[in-house]
C-alpha cells in the first residue's frame, strides 16, 4: 500500500448501490406513526390573489390528520436562501403555477395525494409574465438589480472595429432530473426540537429554515443527510421547502412526518437552470480577433430571487470563457417572471456565459471564413492579454496546451477535411465538427462560503470516524475525503468509517456546491487528521525517545528507526496516556478577494481547464442528429481518484449534452410547464452517448494553487465540454451555405436544427 491518494478506488457505496442496500431518505425505516405530507396548489392559475381557499373536503377525507396553511406557521414563513421572498406556504397570493398553498398531512401517502386534489381554490388570476420578453413588456421588477462589467468605451470600440456582428439568441433552461426526487423525514424531539433527514446539499440551510419557521434556536434543530440520489444544484436551496413542510407537519401533529414529491410536482415546484436571451454585438478584425464585445444576458429568474444573483454573476464571470476581450460591456438582467424560481444547476450560470463566448467564435469564423478552431486560438488569453473582465489576472493558463494536445490526438484537421468531402458527396446527411475549450473559475464568488469544517475521531482499535460538512450526491466526495484522511494517517481507506453529514457534528457549513466539496472539506479533514496525528506522534516520540519529526505513519503502522507499532496500538497508547484522539479541522480558502461593487478582485482560487472535440451528423430533412465521436482532454491537477474524476467528466459531459440537445422545457402562455415528467422531458439515455467516446485526463504537473494534494475541482467544469456538440451541429448546418450563420438555439432539438437548416435557405 503506497498511500490512498491517486488511486482509482470505487465509490464508498458502490457495493451498496448495486445491492440496493444503500439507504436513501425514503428507504429509512419509518418511525412508528409516521405521517405523509402532500403539497397542494391551484391547478389552473399561475399568479394572482387567493380569493377563496376551501379545504373542507380535504380535511374530511378519511385518513387526513391535518391540513396546513400559512397561518399554521409559528415563526417565519420563508425558505429562501437569502432574501426572504420564498414563502413555504403561499400567503394570500401565488406567483407561479404550482406554488404550494397548503399541505395535507395524512396516514398514508396515497391518502394525502388523493385528498390534496379536493381543495377548492379560487384565484383572481392575473396574466402571468412567462418569458423574459413578457417581463420586460409588463415591467416587472427584477428579482435583483442588474449588474455589469465594463472596460473602455465599448460603443466607440465597436464603431472602430473593422467588422461587427449583432445577434440575439435563446438558451434554454434545464431540469435537474435527479432520479431521487425531493424528500425529507422529520422527527419531533423533546422540548420541541426537530431532527430532519433531508436529501439536501445544504443541511445547514435546512436547519436554519426550520428553526426560523418553528421559532427555535438553531441548536434545537438537527439536519442529517447520508446521501442523495442525485442533486446537481437542485437540492442546494430548493430542498428546504419540503424539509420545512415535513417539520411543520411533525410540529403540528407531534408525529414523525415525511414529505416526498411526486416526479410531476418535483418538476413543477422546484427551480431549474436559468434560461436566457443573449443579445450581443461583437467587433473583430480581419484575423478574427475580437476588438470589443457588448453583451446583455436576460435571465428568466422566476418569481423570486433564490440564488439568481450568484447564478447570473457567474454567467458574467464566464462570458469570456477562455478568451480575452480588450473592451467589453458585460451586462446581466435578472428578470422576474411568473414561473418557478430558477436556481443552482451544475455550472451555476457559467454554461450560459460560455455558450455565448463559443457562439461568438463560430459567428466570427463563419463571417471570416476561418476555421473556428483558429478563431478560438487567436482569441485565447495570453501574454499581455491576461486580465479577465473582473480584473483577475489569469496566471495558470493552460488552455492553449490542452487545445493543441487535443487538436492533435483527435486528428481535428484531417477529420475536418474528410468531413468536407463527406458533405460534398452527401445530399441529406451532413457532418460537422468542433473543438471547444472550457475555463472555469473555482471558488464560491460569495467569498465567505469558501470555508469548511471536519470532525475526525480515532478509536483505540485504530479505526477512524470521519465527518465533514460536505454532502454526498454521487460525486464521490466521501471516498475522496476518506482517501485524504487515510493518507494522512497512513492507514487503509477501509479503516475510515465515513458517516452521514449532520449539522450536529459539523456546524455552520456551506452548501456542497461550486465544485468545491473536495477542495474545502478535504483540507478541513486533512487539518483535523493532522492535529490528531501530531498528538499521536508526540506520544510515540516520548515513548521511543526520538524526535516527533522522525516518526512516519505508513502502511497502517507507525515507524521510527527500529521502532514500529500498529496504528491501533499507538491509538491505544494515546488513550492510556490520556491524549485526545478527536479533533475538528477547519479550512478557509486563502488569497481570494472579491469587491463586487467595483467589479474587481481575485474571486477564483484557480481555474479548471478542459477541451472537447465532437463530431456529429445531422439529417437535413428531419433535423435529427447523431453524435459520432467525442474526444475529451480535461485537467484535474493531480487526480485524487482518477475513476471518480473520469466519472465526473463523462457524466457532466452527457448531462451538458442533454441541456444543449434534447432537454426542452416548454411553458405554455398560461405559465404552465408542459414538460413535467420523463415522458415529455428527455434527458439523454444510453443510446445518445457516442460509442467512440475518448476521455483522458490532462497530464498535469499538479494544480499551481495549493489545493488539496494539488488536485483540481471537477464537479462542474465538464458540464460545459459538450458545447462542442452544439457547435458541431452549427458547423454541419453552416456548411449548407458558407458565409451564412445558422439561426441555432439551445437546445438543438430536431425541430430547432431543422429550423436552423431552413434559415440557411432564406
Amino acid at each position: 500500500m503506497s498511500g490512498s491518494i491517486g488511486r482509482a478506488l470505487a465509490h464508498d457505496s458502490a457495493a451498496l448501490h448495486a445491492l440496493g442496500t444503500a439507504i436513501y431518505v425514503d428507504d429509512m425505516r419509518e418511525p412508528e406513526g409516521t405521517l405523509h405530507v402532500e403539497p397542494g396548489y391551484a391547478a389552473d392559475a399561475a399568479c394572482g390573489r387567493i380569493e377563496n381557499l376551501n379545504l373542507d373536503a380535504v380535511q374530511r377525507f378519511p385518513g387526513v390528520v391535518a391540513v396546513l396553511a400559512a397561518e399554521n406557521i409559528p415563526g417565519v414563513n420563508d425558505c429562501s436562501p437569502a432574501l426572504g421572498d420564498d414563502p413555504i406556504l403561499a400567503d394570500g397570493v401565488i406567483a407561479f403555477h404550482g406554488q404550494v398553498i397548503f399541505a395535507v398531512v395524512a396516514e398514508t401517502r396515497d391518502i394525502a395525494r388523493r385528498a390534496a386534489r379536493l381543495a377548492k381554490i379560487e384565484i383572481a388570476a392575473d396574466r402571468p409574465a412567462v418569458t423574459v420578453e413578457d417581463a420586460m413588456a409588463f415591467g416587472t421588477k427584477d428579482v435583483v438589480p442588474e449588474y455589469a462589467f465594463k472596460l473602455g468605451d465599448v460603443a466607440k470600440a465597436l464603431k472602430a472595429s473593422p467588422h461587427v456582428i449583432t445577434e440575439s439568441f435563446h438558451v434554454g433552461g434545464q431540469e435537474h432530473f435527479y432520479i431521487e426526487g425531493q424528500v425529507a423525514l422529520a422527527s419531533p424531539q423533546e422540548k420541541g426540537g426537530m431532527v430532519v433527514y433531508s436529501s439536501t446539499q445544504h443541511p445547514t440551510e435546512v436547519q436554519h429554515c426550520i428553526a426560523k419557521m418553528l421559532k427555535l434556536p438553531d441548536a434545537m434543530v438537527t439536519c442529517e443527510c447520508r446521501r442523495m440520489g442525485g442533486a446537481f444544484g437542485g437540492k442546494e436551496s430548493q430542498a428546504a421547502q419540503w424539509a420545512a413542510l415535513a417539520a411543520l407537519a411533525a410540529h403540528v401533529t407531534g408525529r414523525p412526518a415525511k414529505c416526498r414529491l411526486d416526479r410531476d410536482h418535483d418538476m413543477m415546484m422546484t427551480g431549474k437552470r436559468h434560461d436566457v436571451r443573449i443579445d450581443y454585438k461583437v467587433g473583430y478584425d480581419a484575423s478574427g480577433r475580437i476588438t470589443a464585445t457588448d453583451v446583455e444576458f436576460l435571465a428568466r429568474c422566476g418569481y423570486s430571487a433564490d440564488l439568481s444573483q450568484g447564478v447570473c454573476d457567474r454567467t458574467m464571470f464566464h462570458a469570456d470563457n477562455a478568451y480575452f476581450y480588450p473592451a467589453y460591456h458585460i451586462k446581466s438582467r435578472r428578470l422576474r417572471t411568473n414561473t418557478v424560481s430558477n436556481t443552482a444547476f451544475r455550472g451555476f450560470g457559467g454554461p450560459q456565459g460560455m455558450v455565448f463566448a463559443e457562439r461568438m467564435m463560430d459567428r466570427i469564423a463563419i463571417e471570416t471564413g476561418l476555421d473556428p478552431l483558429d478563431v478560438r486560438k487567436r482569441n485565447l488569453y495570453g501574454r499581455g492579454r491576461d486580465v479577465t473582465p473582473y480584473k483577475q489576472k489569469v496566471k495558470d493558463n493552460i488552455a492553449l496546451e490542452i487545445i493543441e494536445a487535443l487538436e492533435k490526438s483527435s486528428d481535428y484537421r484531417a477529420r475536418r477535411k474528410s468531413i468536407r468531402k463527406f458533405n460534398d458527396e452527401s445530399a441529406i446527411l451532413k457532418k460537422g465538427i468542433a473543438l471547444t475549450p472550457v475555463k472555469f473559475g473555482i471558488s464560491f464568488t460569495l467569498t465567505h462560503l469558501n470555508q469548511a469544517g471536519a470532525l475526525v475521531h480515532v478509536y483505540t482499535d485504530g479505526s477512524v470516524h470521519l465527518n465533514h460538512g460536505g454532502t454526498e450526491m454521487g460525486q464521490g466526495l466521501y471516498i475522496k475525503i476518506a482517501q485524504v484522511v487515510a493518507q494522512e494517517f497512513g492507514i487503509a481507506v477501509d479503516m475510515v468509517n465515513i458517516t452521514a453529514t449532520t449539522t450536529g457534528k459539523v456546524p455552520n457549513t456551506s452548501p456542497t456546491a461550486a465544485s468545491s466539496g473536495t477542495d474545502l472539506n478535504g483540507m478541513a479533514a486533512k487539518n483535523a487528521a493532522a492535529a490528531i496525528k501530531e498528538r499521536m506522534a508526540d506520544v510515540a516520540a516520548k515513548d521511543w525517545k526520538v524526535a516527533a519529526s522522525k516518526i512516519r505513519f505508513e502502511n497502517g503502522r507507525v515507524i521510527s528507526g527500529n521502532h514500529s507499532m500498529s496504528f491501533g496500538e499507538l491509538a491505544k497508547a494515546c488513550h492510556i496516556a490520556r491524549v485526545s484522539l478527536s479533533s475538528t479541522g477547519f479550512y478557509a480558502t486563502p488569497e481570494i478577494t472579491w469587491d463586487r461593487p467595483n467589479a474587481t478582485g481575485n474571486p477564483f482560487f484557480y481555474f479548471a481547464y478542459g477541451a472537447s472535440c465532437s463530431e456529429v451528423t445531422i439529417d437535413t430533412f428531419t433535423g435529427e442528429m447523431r453524435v459520432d465521436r467525442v474526444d475529451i482532454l480535461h485537467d484535474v491537477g493531480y487526480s485524487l481518484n482518477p475513476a471518480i474524476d473520469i466519472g465526473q467528466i463523462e457524466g457532466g459531459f452527457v448531462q451538458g449534452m442533454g441541456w444543449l440537445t434534447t432537454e426542452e422545457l416548454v411553458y405554455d402562455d398560461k405559465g404552465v410547464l408542459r414538460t413535467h415528467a420523463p415522458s415529455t422531458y428527455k434527458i439523454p439515455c444510453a443510446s445518445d452517448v457516442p460509442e467512440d467516446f475518448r476521455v483522458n485526463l490532462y497530464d498535469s504537473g499538479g494544480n499551481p494553487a495549493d489545493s488539496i494534494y494539488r488536485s483540481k475541482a471537477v464537479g462542474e467544469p465538464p458540464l460545459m465540454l459538450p458545447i462542442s456538440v452544439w457547435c458541431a451541429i452549427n458547423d454541419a448546418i453552416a456548411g449548407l451555405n458558407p458565409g451564412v450563420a445558422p439561426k441555432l438555439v439551445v437546445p438543438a432539438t430536431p425541430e430547432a436544427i431543422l429550423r436552423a437548416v431552413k434559415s440557411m435557405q432564406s
Partner: protein
Amino acid sequence: MTRRTIRFLRKGKVAELSAVPPMRTLLEYLRLTEKSKGTKEGCNEGDCGSCTVALGSIEDGHIVYEPVNACIVLLGQIDGKELITVDDLANDGKLHPVQQAFVDHHASQCGFCTPGFIMALFTLYHAGFKPTRQQIVDHIAGNLCRCTGYRPIIDAATQACNGRITDAWVADSSAELLATIQDGEDVFIGDDQSFFAAPATAEGLAKLCETYPDATIVAGATDVGLWITKQLRVLPKIISVGRAHRFDTIEDHVGHISIGASATYADAEPYLTAIDPDLGEAIRRVGAKQVRASGTIGGNIANGSPIGDMPPMLIALGATLHLRHGDAQRAMPLEDFFLAYGKQDRAPGELVWRIDVPKLNPRDAYRCYKISKRRDQDISAVMAAFKFTLDGRMISAARIAFGGMAATPKRAAQAEAALVGASFDDALSWNAALSALHDDYQPISDMRASAAYRVDMAKALLCKALMEVGSGRSRDTRLSGLREEAA
C-alpha cells in the same frame, strides 16, 4: 374454478396473497408491504426504469426473465410468475456477477438508478447470449441515469453479460416450482363492486368483460398504470387479460399474420420485422425493453392514442381489427376503429380480440419513420408509415398513415390518391401528393413539436420514403435503422 388469491414465486418459495386491491401496484407492494426498499421509485410512470424488477415465466419449458417497471405493473398481474428484485441477487453476501461488474467499472455514482439497471441487466444476463454494444444499449434504453453518462454501465454490462450463466438462477432452477403454480383457474379477488380478475381463458375473458362492462381492461398496464399512479383515477374493477390462455398467440399464415390482442411488442417484434425491417426498427423504438415486455399491440390500439406508434404502422399495411363482445365478433379496417380524439369504436365490455396484418406482396414497398426529440424511449412527435404498390418505376397504389398529425391515427387519403401514377424517377411527380398532405392534416402544436414542424415532417418523410424506395438505399438518408444493415 375460481381462485381467490394470486400466487407467485418469491425468494425460492411460493407466495400466496389474498389481499390484492385492484389498483395496488407491484412497487407499492414491494416498498410498503414487503418493505423491500432496494427497488426505487424514480418517476412512477414507467419512464425511468429505477423500479425495474425481473419477472420470470415459463416458455417452452424454460424460464424466461423479462424486465418490467414495477411502478405501473399491478400486483395482481404477477400471478404465476417468479418475482426477482435487486434485494435477492447477492448470494451469502457475494455480489451477483452483474452487481460485481458495476463495482468493478465504477458504474454507479449516486446509486439511485442502479438497482433498476442491475435488474434490467439481470434479464440480459439470462438471455443466454453475448450481446453486442448495440444490444446492450437497446436493453437499457428504458433506464435513465443522470450521473454517469452510461459509458461505465455499458462496460459493466459487457463484462457481466458474456453468455455464461453462473448465478443461482442457472439452468432454470426455479422452473419446477414455477410449474406448480400454473393452473387453468380464473383469478377473481374481491366482490362485485371492487375486484381484480384475471380469467384463464379468452372465452372467460370475453364473458367477464361482457358481465362487467364498466370494468377497466388491463393488458400491459403501460398506459392504465399511469391512470392510477398519475391521474389517481379510481378503477375499482380491473380485468387483466394477461392470463388468458392463447390470447397472446401470434399465428403466421401465408399471406398475413394474426396477432392475439395480448401479444406484447416483444412477442410481435420478430413477426413484424419479418414483414419489413422498418417495422422492427420502429418497434425497437417503442418505449424500451420494459415497456415492450409488458405493453401489448392490442392495448396500444384499444387506447386509441393519437400518438400511439402501432396504429399508423399497421394501418399502412392494411390491417384488420377483430373485436369481440361476449360471443359476438366483428371486424373492421383498423383505421375505422378510431372515431375521434379519445373515442374508439368499441362498446363497453367489448374486447380488442385480434389484429390481422397482411404481409407485403412482391410489388409492395414499405417504409416507416418515427420522429421524436430523443431517439430511444420517446413518444413520437410524428409517426409515418407508407406502403407503395409499384408498377415498374411507377406507383399504382399507396397507403399512407400518420400518427401525431391529427386527433387520431389517420390515413392521408388525398396524398394517397395524388400519388397514383407518380414516378420514382421524377421528383416533380411527387409534388401533388406532397401538397395534398396539407389538406389531409391540420396538426396541433404541443410540447413535442409545433404544428409547422409536424407538417414539415409529413412532407419530408413522404419524400424520404419515395427517395429510399426509388434508390433502394437508406444509407444516404438515415442516421439509424439502416435497411442495408438489417438485410
